[in-house]
């Protein structure tokens, strides 16, 4: 009900369509499921509006390798918060494939998973709560922890690199 990105609530500017059915007018910004993108790729790329793709669990982000620079947004669906496949998709898209557009978590997106999503490269979150509540949840989640052990593509400094820095200072 509210999308949070870059510490603010943003407008929904995208229409997500199903696997089948008519496409809206050519000017609308569309998000289509990966399967449909693969089937109707040329038609979709020829439209005027913005284009995004939704990944569902079981999809392969690698299928988008040739088209990443044509996509403004990729949404990753978490049908249940317990289905963690989307975390791998996020890291593969960001760290391996170099996707720089918006990476949005949709579906069962809850406060207690947001930090992990952020660490895996997500930068927007579609929450099932109203604006300010959603914003407060995201803010609280992102500042809950300050120590990180794993190097991921989110740019957070790991405990290990801080330790190395400290050792280097002590030795100099």
């Amino acid at each position, binding site marked *: 009900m509210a999308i949070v990105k870059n510490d603010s609530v943003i407008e929904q500017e995208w229409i997500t369509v199903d696997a089948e059915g008519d496409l809206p007018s050519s000017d609308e910004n569309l998000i289509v499921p990966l399967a449909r993108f693969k089937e109707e790729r040329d038609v979709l790329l020829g439209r005027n509006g913005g284009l995004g793709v939704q990944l569902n669990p079981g999809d392969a982000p690698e299928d988008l390798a040739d088209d990443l620079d044509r996509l403004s947004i990729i949404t990753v669906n978490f049908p249940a918060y317990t289905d963690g496949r989307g*975390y791998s998709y996020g890291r593969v898209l960001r760290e391996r494939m170099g996707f720089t557009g918006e990476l949005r978590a949709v579906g069962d997106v809850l406060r207690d998973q947001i930090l992990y999503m952020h660490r895996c490269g997500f930068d927007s979150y579609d929450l099932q709560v109203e604006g300010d509540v959603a914003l407060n949840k995201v803010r609280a989640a992102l500042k809950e922890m300050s120590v990180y052990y794993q*190097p991921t593509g989110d740019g957070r400094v790991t405990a290990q690199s801080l330790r190395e820095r400290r050792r280097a200072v002590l030795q100099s």
Partner: protein
Amino acid sequence: MYRYDDFDRQLVLERTEQFREQVKRRLAGDITEEQFRPLRLMNGVYLQLHAYMLRVAVPYGTLRADQLRQLGMIARKYDKGYGHFTTRQNIQYNWPKLDEIPDALLDLAKVEMHAIQTSGNCIRNTTTDQYAGAAADEIEDPRPYCELIRQWSTFHPEFTYLPRKFKIAVTGSPNDRAAVKVHDIGLRMHQNDAGETGFEVMVGGGLGRTPFVGKTIREFIGKNDLFSYLEAILRVYNRFGRRDNKYKARIKILVHEEGIDKIRELVEEEWAQIKDGSLRVDDAEIAHYIEQFAPPAFEALSDDDADFERHKAENRRFANWVRSNVIEHKQPGYAIANVSLKPIGGIPGDATDSQMELVADLSEKYSFGDVRVTHEQNLVLPHVKKADLFAVWSELDKAELGTANLGYVTDIISCPGLDYCALATARSIPLSQRISERFGDLDRQHDIGELKIKISGCINACGHHHVGHIGILGLDKRGKEFYQITLGGDASEDAAIGKIAGAGFSEAEVVDAIESLVTKYIDIRESGERFIDTYRRVGMDPFKEVLYGDR
């Protein structure tokens, strides 16, 4: 031993505060039990039959004296004065109150402990050889790598919602005391042809309702590459592991269904893309961790101690304890002393607050403040001077911790069973107590020799029955408990899954059935054969015959 630095300390404190907040939200009704469930599980809090249960991590089974003392204090303050050491080298408290658990976690944090990832579909506590750093047969101390795995796996953002739980075990010795072949990933240290030390990587082992011995996915991975290789396996599992059925969601099923060759191909393909990335750990960093587990300041001693020999000659009970519970140490003049938590007729793995405090005191006085927890639910004082063994045993004996039965028929692994567990179909503890009493006579136990009995109260196999020389599985048949016997299981480097002997036995019959198996073994064993050796030589039939006759 590893000491937290300010980063580790900060992380655990933040986690404690985070959980306090989550408990508050749950108690206020802001989140549902269903939403709270994975959060509490990720902090080791289960809902059992009668109460919440708190499972505290003992990373790679290593405890300092102050930590064990604090575990005793927590048993007294938040529980009924005891705790239960588990097959995963952890400790469980059975009676904490939910609103007090954040305080218990804070008390744990004070001694650099936590309950992080002791449950939930994430990477669990890494386990290893309880004799690490002390064993005479060790290639290298595995704990520095275990600590690196602990850090890598703690709050791993990608692997916190896996298809199912994930357990990693490491052995630094060719004699596997960590059951690495029945873990999701088993790591065995060895040297390659170039003389470098690294790891054989096994994957897809496990117990539960579909037991498998792990398969080798890579003969050798160097130390620098271990962590990227683990990440590659986990990523393949996270992406491709089954999520449609929780009983088919472990990596062992993926390996079984796809075949080890296919999984190897996927993992190697993934690894090729990340192996030169930021998970590559350089020698300097590894050296830093090795330094933290440096051997304590052993004295240069003769391996023979006259007083020790004299005490053995004069005190038969002490001599018996030495024979079963004391193991050779790599350092001359020192020994590894096992503290049995299996008193005859007792509850396997339970220790009282004062017992924990006593072992903590003894470790401080005699073992460099170092204590280990074993996956067979005992404790270890890893570095005791031979000259001190008699003093240690005398103190243990007074506290009912001096039972001389390590590896014997009464050293039973048992899950909590229907006395505590919400999943159990039968009781395990009372049965293990009755078996222990039946075979309580020490001379008889010594005569029987090594015999590993393992009891699970349901098919989830927490009591490791599949890998018991004699395994016992408690089931429910129309409201009555009955027990199925398996033979020939083994958790060691010769890992094997036991075979079902036949129809199950009633609660009244099962102890007699076990005794008839033991009697048969005594009758037909050849010189030097353990029960498992005899079973391997003669097979199931002779044992089946004594169990069932013409039945």
